[in-house]
């Protein structure tokens, strides 16, 4: 009896393996760049490091609630917002894995979740580099980390300055989530401010100043930014101009990550897109925004309405300086776009 049952089990498993071939999504995990600076940010500034974990929970928590409870369950979203605020006050000791926060969403949009995780890894490595006094040449170390990140080109976000293009004009779902759930959307945008502000604080020249600035950032974040969140998605270089000038490609990578978070929110919150179609629409947008495809992708022009509620700084375009360096989109010293409608998303070599 045992033998018959076990043979059946093995046979069924093999059949299932073959049938799984029809819908294969491979995991394709890659480990982060090994380096002596890894985890220095966590070790030196644990409160600042742990302050990110609620953001991680918020992003993936939103996806899971929208998938499991549907796009219109306001009560579930309010409950999630309360839980996020609890984690802001009392963050987990370690970063919770996305697949625990959003186990069902991970099955729908695995590639996008993996790209987000891969980019969070770059986030943390750049925090580590800026936190580690043993790393004297921050620029070289940062560019090595970015080069390694980009080598996983289908999970790396584009280095081009797409600004707000895809989240405002990528599809009919645009801005759906922000209109439906302004409270929790505000929390997410506040966290985008927080991520960039931490970079700027870490660019202080010594650890005492860094610690002081980080305390200030966390205080401003909880007392002010979270209480009165931004009304548009802040760009990294707007909030962190020194960081943006040092690593313009990284500033754009993080803006594109944040934009992808918004795009996923909108797709998940749009009841016109069926549950089964959400995954493919998210995949379609990911393909538009990854590094592997950036040479042929043309970002959609912003709708005219976007100009009304966005500050001037957010409208700047990537700008090349006389010495060849670039300032990323959103940088206060970057140029404003040409006035033709939509032109501000395109290359501006002609303006140099």
């Amino acid at each position: 009896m045992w033998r018959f049952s076990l043979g059946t089990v093995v046979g069924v498993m093999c059949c299932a393996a073959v049938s799984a071939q029809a819908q294969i999504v491979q995991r394709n995990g890659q480990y982060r760049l090994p380096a002596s600076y890894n985890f220095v940010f966590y070790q030196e500034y644990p409160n600042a490091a742990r302050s990110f974990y609620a953001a991680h929970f918020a992003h993936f928590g939103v996806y899971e609630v929208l998938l499991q409870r549907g796009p219109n369950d306001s009560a579930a979203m309010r409950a999630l917002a309360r839980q996020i605020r609890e984690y802001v006050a009392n963050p987990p000791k370690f970063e919770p894995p996305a697949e625990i926060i959003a186990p069902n969403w991970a099955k729908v949009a695995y590639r996008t979740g993996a790209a987000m995780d891969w980019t969070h890894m770059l986030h943390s490595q750049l925090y580590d580099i800026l936190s580690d006094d043993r790393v004297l040449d921050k620029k070289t170390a940062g560019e090595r980390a970015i080069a390694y990140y980009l080598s996983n080109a289908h999970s790396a976000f584009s280095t081009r300055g797409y600004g707000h293009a895809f989240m405002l004009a990528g599809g009919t779902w645009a801005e759906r989530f922000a209109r439906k759930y302004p409270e929790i959307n505000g929390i997410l945008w506040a966290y985008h401010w927080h991520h960039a502000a931490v970079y700027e604080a870490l660019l202080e020249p010594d650890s005492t100043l860094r610690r002081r600035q980080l305390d200030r950032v966390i205080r401003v974040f909880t007392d002010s930014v979270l209480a009165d969140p931004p009304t548009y998605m802040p760009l990294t270089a707007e909030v962190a101009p020194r960081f943006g000038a040092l690593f313009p490609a990284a500033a754009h990578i993080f803006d594109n990550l944040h934009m992808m978070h918004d795009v996923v929110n909108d797709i998940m919150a749009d009841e016109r897109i069926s549950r089964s179609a959400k995954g493919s629409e998210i995949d379609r947008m990911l393909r538009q925004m990854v590094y592997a495809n950036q040479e042929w992708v043309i970002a959609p022009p912003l709708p005219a309405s976007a100009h009304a509620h966005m500050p001037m700084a957010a409208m700047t375009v990537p700008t090349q300086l006389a010495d060849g360096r670039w300032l990323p989109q959103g940088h206060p010293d970057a140029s404003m776009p040409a006035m033709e409608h939509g032109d501000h998303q395109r290359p501006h070599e002609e303006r140099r």
Partner: protein
Amino acid sequence: MEITNVRMRKGAEMTMLLRLTAVGVMLTGFQVSVLAQEDFRSVDAGRPIRVEDAYPLKFLEWEWELGSEFLVAEGGRRGATGVLELKVGIARNLQFGVEAHPAWERVAGAASGGVEEFSTHLLFNVNQEGRSAPAVAFRTTLLAPGIGDVRREDVGLELLAIQTKSLSRLRLHLNGGYAIASDIDGGAYWISGLGFDFPIGLFSKSILGDLYLEVPTDRSDARVWFEVGTRLQITNVSVLDLGVTARLDEWGRGAANIGVVFGLSRVFGVPGLVKIPAYPNPRVN
């Protein structure tokens, strides 16, 4: 405790086990670069359950593991088994590992010990779990004779198909396979196991359990284990397992037994083995 598929010899003491434990302790100090324990849920055979999940290490991710099981059984039988393992993601979705399995047992005052076997494995993950399809992996393990009184005599081979399917946060792991072994090592047997893991909150704790069977092809009695345990992430890079285990088939024959299992693992990367491309000065406009 019965050390399966191993010819018992007399005269050995715990020395070998202690030496191997020392090697394990030395390994705990081995870290080229410590990185995040990114998949603290990863279920690994022997820590603290026998069932394996379908997910391999990431490409270029290294991990060492130390697992131990201490068992007492009716009639004064005592024993300890362990696993020392080093594994690495050698390609995307492909894991390679080497293991040593120390063992010690005392029955009726006579002790025997040594390394039951050395083994090496490849685990290939076919796919990430989808909305309907489970994650599927195949593992092949080559077993070689160890050292001392408890060593296996001949080379063996184990072929395993693994599925992982989640129901919200609960993950189920189904293992099925076949092991080839010479008669002196106990003969061939079928393998089947069903395990689970379930995270507790967001705070890097989980509970795990399994039911695991080995059914000899020579129609002798099946070996059946039941195990349950917990897993705790103790640092950004380390995970601790604690569990209890029992041989249900021996209980069924009136021989009470219970074991305690603990395990420790740590992940790391090796900088010299990672190729970093030159900065591509990527387009930003």
